């Protein structure tokens, strides 16, 4: 997948076709994935000469595990979100950014990040139990 915002759209369009007919809330998955992938495109390219992004989807009994693997610099999952900050702000003071991670955490059942041999691996899980989360397979 070409690391650009347009590339993200193309990848998600392809994923939608692949998952057509599955009884899932694709809209929620699409939005969470778009946020995560756009974050890679926007921030990852600043830290490496050639940004590489791989999106892997594992499906089992209508439960989905998405792995986003990319080679940008290490980062930490944010713990504070613009949505929380905006709750006490006026319209003029409202933050116009920082919503992405809040959306990811709101839509995915599980969000995990790890660093493996120079690659960031962000995993988003939808509809899984704790055991299924731990047993999530990668292809």
């Amino acid at each position: 997948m070409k690391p650009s915002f347009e590339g993200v759209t193309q990848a998600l369009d392809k994923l939608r076709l692949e998952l057509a007919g599955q009884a899932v809330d694709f809209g929620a998955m699409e939005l969470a994935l778009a946020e995560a992938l756009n974050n890679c495109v926007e921030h990852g390219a600043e830290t490496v000469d050639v940004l590489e992004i791989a999106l892997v989807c594992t499906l089992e009994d209508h439960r989905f595990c998405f792995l986003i693997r990319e080679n940008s610099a290490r980062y930490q999952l944010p713990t504070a979100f613009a949505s929380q900050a905006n709750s006490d702000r006026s319209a003029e003071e409202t933050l116009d950014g920082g919503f992405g991670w809040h959306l990811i955490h709101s839509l995915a059942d599980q969000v995990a990040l790890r660093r493996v041999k120079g690659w960031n691996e962000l995993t988003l899980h939808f509809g899984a139990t704790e055991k299924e989360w731990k047993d999530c397979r990668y292809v």
Partner: protein
Amino acid sequence: MNITSETINDVTVATLNERRLDAALAVRFKDAMRPIVDTAEGRVVLDMGSIEFMDSSGLGAIVALMKYLGPERPLDLACLQPAVDRVFRLTRMDGVFTIYRDVGVATDATAKSA
């Protein structure tokens, strides 16, 4: 970015004729809206009925537009599809914007922004 505009009851209605408002189109959205809102004298209503998908970049562009217009020219929203409405609800931005179910209600002469 295909955006059309008209004036109804002194309200500037900008209709987004696109399927998506996302990171790939957010900048073009802001650029396309600028000449429309620069001539708006009062309320502006954004008709988002065609938008099937919006991400945080699209939301950020709308918030930036609201701040650009300022308190004298409120920005309201209309015709949100469920997926788009979800983004506003999850981010609590549905408390910042006035959201109407259709343009007719939004441009009713008695309608006022919160």
